[in-house]
C-alpha cells in the first residue's frame, strides 16, 4: 500500500523532488521532415499539401507474422477493429507507389545525405550498410500497412545540464497519411504527406521532469534546424513522448505538434500512471488479482426495451442490441480519478470506441455513475438479471451485435488489466493537456525486412563529403559564442541559424566583431522580417557583399542594415566600387540640406527634432557614416534651426 502514498499536486506546485519521488522517466522520439525536392521512395514532389483529391481507394489491413514468428499486439488489436480505410488521392502529389500499386524506387540520395549529416551531429555510430525495414502500422495510416524505414546511426548523446542524454538511434523513414475522419468502421486519410522523408531521433528515457523533456526537445530541434536542411512550419516536426513512473510501463504520447505542450502532457501522463498503480493496489486490497478477476457478459436488450435513457433508447429503437458486463469487486472504481476531470471509466470508454468502433459518445454507462442514466428500477432489474452483488459494477454498451460483442470483451480486458497495472499503450495528446487511448503500443515484433529493396552500402567517401560541409554541433558553437561575447539573447538563435557558418567566417577570417556580426545576422534579419520584407533574399552571397563593405570600412553598422533592407526589398544595389565612407564635407553639406528640408515638416515636440534630422541625414548618406560620430553635430544643427 505504502509505495504509492504520494498524491499528485497541481502542475505548478510539483518540484523536482516530487518527480523523483514518483520515479518520473521520459524519452523522446522526434520526427522531423527533411527539406528535399522529392519523396523518399518515389519521385513525387515533397511538401505540397492540399485537401483536394481526385480519387478514392478502399483497403483493409490484415496482421502478418514477424520475421521472428510473432504476431504484434497492435496488429491484432487493429484487426479486431475491422476498419474500412479510404484513401483520398491527389494525382499531383501521389503516384501508384504511395497507393501500394508500384514497388519502391531507390531511396532519395539527398534525404540520405541529410540524415547522415544529422546523425554525425548527434555523434552517432553510423551504419555501414543500410537495411530497409517495414514497420507495420495496421491503423491504415500507410496504404502498404507498413512504413519503410532504415537505421542510419546508433548510440550517440547530447550534453544536457551536467549529464548526457543518450540518443539511442536515428532512422530515416517515410511519413504517413493525414487522418481526415474516423467514424464507426470507416477511417479516411489524405495521402499528400505520405512518403515525405523524415528522420526519427530516439532519445533514452533520461529526462527526469516534464520541463527537462521540453528543454531536450528544444536542443534537438535547434540542432537539426542548424543544418538548414529540414522543413519548418506546422506539422514539419512532431514529437512522440514516452513516459513512465516507478513500477509503471512505458506509454507513448503520440504526435505532439508543439514543444511547449510537452510539460503538461507528460505531467498528466505520469499522474495517470500513478493513479492507475494506486487503483491496482486498491483492487488487490479487495482481492481482485489478474488471476482471480471475474467478469460476465449478458445480453440485456430485452430488459432495457422501455428505458427512457435516450442513447440506449435510440439504439434499441433502431434494432441494435445492448450488452452488460459485470465487473466483480469493482464497486465505485469506475469513478477512480486518473487525470484531472477524468475517471477510470474513460479508459474503458476509449477502448470501446477504438476497438469496437462504437465512436458515438457516450458509448458506455456504468452503475457507479452519479449522473442520470438508467432509472434505479432499471439498474435493479439488470443487476438481478445478471446476478450481480452490491460489490460489483455493471457496464452497459450498445450498438450492432458484432460491435457489442467486441465491446463487452474489450471492457473485460481493460478491467482485468487494471489488476495488472498499466497497459502499454500509444495515447493521443488532447488539447487540454490530458491524453486518450489510441492503440496498444507496438513492439519489435512488427519489424520486417523490406524484400523490395537491396541493402545499401554507406561509403567512407560519402561520409567524408557530408562531414566537410557540416556545421559544428550547436552546443560546441554556443559555448564559443559566449566566450567571444555574442550577446546572451542571440546565442541560441544564432546557433540554430543557417547563417552560423557565415558568422564563423566573418569573425574568424574577416575579423569582424562578434557583436556586430551576430546582431546583423540575427537581429537585423528579424527586424526586417517584422517589417514584412522578404528576408529569404538575404542569401549568403548578398550578405558577404554587404559585410565586405563593412570590413573595408566603406559603410557603418547602420549601412549594413540599410543594405540588408535594400536586398530584402529586391535591390537594386550600387556598384561596390562607388561606395566609400562619407567625407567631412559631404557630412556637413548633408546636415545643412536635411535641416533645410526639416523646416518644411511640422514637428510639435521640439525634442523629436534631433531624432528626425538624424533619420534624414542617415538615409541620405546610406550608412556611409557611423551614426554615433555625427550625433553631436546633428543635435546642434537641430537646435540652431528651431
Amino acid at each position: 500500500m505504502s509505495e504509492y502514498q504520494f498524491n499528485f499536486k497541481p502542475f505548478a506546485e510539483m518540484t523536482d523532488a516530487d518527480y523523483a519521488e514518483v520515479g518520473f522517466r521520459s524519452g523522446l522520439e522526434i520526427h522531423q521532415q527533411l527539406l528535399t525536392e522529392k519523396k523518399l521512395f518515389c519521385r513525387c514532389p515533397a511538401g505540397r499539401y492540399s485537401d483536394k483529391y481526385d480519387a478514392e481507394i478502399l483497403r483493409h489491413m490484415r496482421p502478418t507474422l514477424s520475421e521472428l514468428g510473432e504476431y504484434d499486439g497492435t496488429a491484432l488489436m487493429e484487426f479486431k477493429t475491422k476498419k474500412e480505410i479510404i484513401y483520398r488521392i491527389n494525382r499531383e502529389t501521389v503516384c501508384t507507389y504511395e497507393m501500394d500499386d508500384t514497388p519502391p524506387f531507390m531511396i532519395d540520395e539527398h534525404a540520405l545525405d541529410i540524415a547522415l549529416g544529422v546523425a554525425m551531429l548527434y555523434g552517432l555510430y553510423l551504419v555501414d550498410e543500410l537495411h530497409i525495414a517495414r514497420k507495420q502500422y495496421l491503423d491504415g495510416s500507410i496504404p502498404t500497412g507498413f512504413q519503410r524505414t532504415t537505421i542510419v546511426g546508433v548510440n550517440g548523446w547530447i550534453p544536457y545540464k551536467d549529464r548526457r542524454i543518450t540518443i539511442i538511434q536515428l532512422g530515416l523513414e517515410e511519413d504517413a497519411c493525414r487522418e481526415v475522419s474516423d467514424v464507426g468502421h470507416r477511417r479516411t486519410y489524405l495521402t499528400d504527406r505520405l512518403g515525405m522523408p523524415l528522420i526519427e531521433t530516439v532519445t533514452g528515457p533520461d529526462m527526469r521532469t516534464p520541463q527537462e523533456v521540453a528543454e531536450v526537445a528544444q536542443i534537438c530541434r535547434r540542432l537539426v534546424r542548424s543544418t538548414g536542411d529540414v522543413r519548418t512550419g506546422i506539422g514539419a516536426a512532431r514529437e512522440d513522448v514516452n513516459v513512465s513512473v516507478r513500477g509503471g510501463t512505458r506509454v507513448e504520447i503520440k504526435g505532439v505538434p508543439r514543444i511547449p505542450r510537452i510539460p503538461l502532457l507528460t505531467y498528466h501522463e505520469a499522474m495517470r500512471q500513478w493513479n492507475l498503480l494506486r487503483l491496482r493496489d486498491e483492487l488487490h486490497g479487495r482481492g481482485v488479482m489478474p488471476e482471480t478477476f471475474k467478469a460476465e457478459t449478458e445480453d440485456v436488450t430485452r430488459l432495457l426495451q422501455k428505458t427512457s435513457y435516450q442513447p440506449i433508447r435510440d439504439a434499441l429503437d433502431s434494432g441494435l442490441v445492448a450488452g452488460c458486463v459485470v465487473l466483480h469487486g469493482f464497486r465505485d472504481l469506475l469513478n477512480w480519478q486518473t487525470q484531472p476531470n477524468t475517471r477510470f471509466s474513460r479508459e474503458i470508454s476509449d477502448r470501446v470506441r477504438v476497438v469496437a468502433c462504437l465512436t458515438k459518445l457516450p458509448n458506455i454507462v456504468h452503475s457507479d455513475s452519479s449522473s442520470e442514466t438508467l432509472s434505479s428500477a432499471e439498474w435493479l432489474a439488470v443487476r438481478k438479471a445478471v446476478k450481480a452483488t452490491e460489490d460489483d459494477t455493471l457496464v452497459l454498451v450498445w450498438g450492432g451485435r458484432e460491435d457489442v460483442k467486441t465491446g463487452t470483451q474489450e471492457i473485460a480486458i481493460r478491467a482485468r488489466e487494471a489488476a495488472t497495472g498499466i497497459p502499454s499503450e500509444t495515447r493521443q495528446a488532447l488539447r487540454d493537456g490530458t491524453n486518450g487511448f489510441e492503440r496498444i503500443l507496438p513492439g519489435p515484433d512488427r519489424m520486417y525486412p523490406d524484400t523490395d529493396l537491396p541493402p545499401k552500402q554507406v561509403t567512407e567517401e560519402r561520409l567524408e563529403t557530408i562531414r566537410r560541409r557540416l556545421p559544428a554541433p550547436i552546443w560546441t558553437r554556443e559555448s564559443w559564442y559566449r566566450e567571444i561575447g555574442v550577446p546572451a539573447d542571440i546565442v541560441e538563435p544564432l546557433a540554430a541559424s543557417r547563417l552560423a557558418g557565415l558568422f564563423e567566417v566573418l569573425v574568424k577570417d574577416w575579423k569582424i566583431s562578434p557583436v556586430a556580426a551576430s546582431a546583423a545576422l540575427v537581429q537585423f534579419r528579424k527586424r526586417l522580417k517584422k517589417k514584412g520584407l522578404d528576408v529569404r533574399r538575404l542569401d549568403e552571397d548578398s550578405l558577404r557583399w554587404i559585410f565586405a563593405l563593412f570590413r573595408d570600412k566603406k559603410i557603418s553598422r547602420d549601412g549594413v542594415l540599410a543594405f540588408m533592407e535594400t536586398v530584402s526589398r529586391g535591390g537594386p544595389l550600387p556598384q561596390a566600387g562607388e561606395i566609400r565612407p562619407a567625407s567631412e564635407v559631404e557630412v556637413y553639406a548633408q546636415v545643412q540640406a536635411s535641416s533645410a528640408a526639416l523646416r518644411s515638416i511640422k514637428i510639435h515636440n521640439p525634442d523629436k527634432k534631433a531624432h528626425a534630422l538624424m533619420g534624414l541625414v542617415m538615409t541620405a548618406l546610406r550608412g556611409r557614416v557611423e551614426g554615433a560620430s555625427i550625433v553631436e553635430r546633428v543635435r546642434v544643427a537641430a537646435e540652431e534651426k528651431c
Partner: protein
Amino acid sequence: MAGDDSYKGYRGEALAVLKSFGAMVWSDVEIKTSRGAYTGIILPRSETADPHHVVIKLRSGYNIGLLARSIEAVAITGRKEAHYKIPEKEFPFDPGKPKVKLLGTGGTIASRLDYRTGAVIPAFSPGELYGSVPELADICNLETEKLFGVFSENMGPEQYIATAKAIGREIEKGVQGVVIGHGTDTMHHTSAILSFMVQDSPVPIVMVGSQRSSDRPSSDAALNLMHSVKTAAESDIAEVMICMFGPTSDTYGLLHRGTRVRKMHSSYRSTFRTIGDIPIAMVSRDKITPLRQDYKRRRADRSVKIDTSFEERVSIVYYYPNMKPDIIDSLIDNGYRGIVIAGTGLGHVNKPLYPALARCREKGIAVYMTVQTLWGYVQMYVYDTGRDMMELGVIPAANMLPEVAYVKLAWALGRTTDLEEVRKIMLTPIAGEITEREPSNGYLIFQGGIPEVEEFISTIKK
C-alpha cells in the same frame, strides 16, 4: 550440413571474420568496429548479398549491416534463434459445405517471409491457410495439394500437363470446384492451355494469385483466396477462369474467361483484364454477379475430357519495323513447327519477310497471324500486304490473343501433324478464344484526364 547453417548465407570476408570470432548466426552479440559499438543478434545473410557485411538485428527490431573488416571485437552474450511458423490450426470440417480442392503450383498467393533470403515461401497446408485466412472455413471444406513450387515464369508443358491431369483426377473424385494457386506473370498462359487441355468440366476451375505477397498487411492474397474459393464452391460457371481484383480497392474480384484474359500491369492489383470482351462475372465476399449468360453451366456428373497434347517447337514472333527475315529463318533452321506472329495493325509484317514466310510454307510450318494491338480482329483482306501474306500461307487467327494462339497452336500441333487438321482446330473456338463478335463495351480503356472519366474515378472507388 549443420556446419554450413552456423554461418548461413555468409561467404568470403564476412564469413572469415565471423569464424575468427566464433560468432555464429543467432548469437546475441556486442560488436565493436572502427565506427562504433553495436548490440544485437547476428542474422543469416541473404545469399545474393555482398560478402563484406555482417547483419545484426538491433533490440529495436531494426536490422543494420556492419563492414566485416572493420570489426575489432565480438562479445557473445547469448543466442536467440527464430522459429518462423504460421499458426497452424486444423481446418474445420462442415458436412454441409462443398468440397473444394486447392492445387498449388507456386507463386505468392499465400506465403510467408524467409528471413534468410528475404524471399517469400508459400503457406499452403489447409491448417496454415486456415491460420492466415480463417474466413475460408465459412465457405467450404478445403483440401490442398502442392503440385510443384515454381515461379510462374518457369511454368512450362511439364507443369501444364501435370496440372491438367490433377484437375481431371479431382473432378473424377467429385470435388465441387478446383482452385489453382499460380504466380501471376504467366497465369494467363496457363489459364489458356488449361482451357484446351481440360474440356467440358462439370465444375468451376479457378486460377488465382496475388500481386502483393501475403506477408504484407495490405496484401490482396486473402481476398483473392476468398473470392476464388467462393467461386469454386458456389458459382455455376463451369469454365477455366482467372479470379483477381477488379479495381485496386478491396471491394470485388472479376472472373475472367481463361482464353480472353491478360496481365496488363506489372504491379497493380487489378492487373488482369478481359480483352475484346467483358468478364464473365463479378465476385465479392457476399455474392457472385454474372455479367453475361453465355457461360458453361455446372453439372452434377463427374465426366471431363482431358487432352494434354503439346508440341514444344512453337514460337511467338513479335513483329517490329525493319525486322529481318533471319529471325524467321532461324526458327525454320531450328526445326520449329509452328509460328504465331503478333503483327501490326490488322495483322501485317514488312515485305523483306516474305521469302522467309514462303520457306515456312515449303517446310510445312504452320504460321498464324495475331495482332499486337491486342484488341480487335486480324483482317488480311483490307490491304494488299495482307492478301500477299495469305498467299504465302499465313493464316489469320481472328481475335485470338497472341499468347492464347501460341499455346493453342502448341496444343493443336501436339494432336496432329496434318496442317489442314491443325487449321480446323485453330479456327474452331473451343473455350471462347475466338469470338464471333466484339461488343461495344469490350474495348474500354479509361483514359485519365478526360472530364467524365475523372468524375467517375472520383466518385466510384477504383
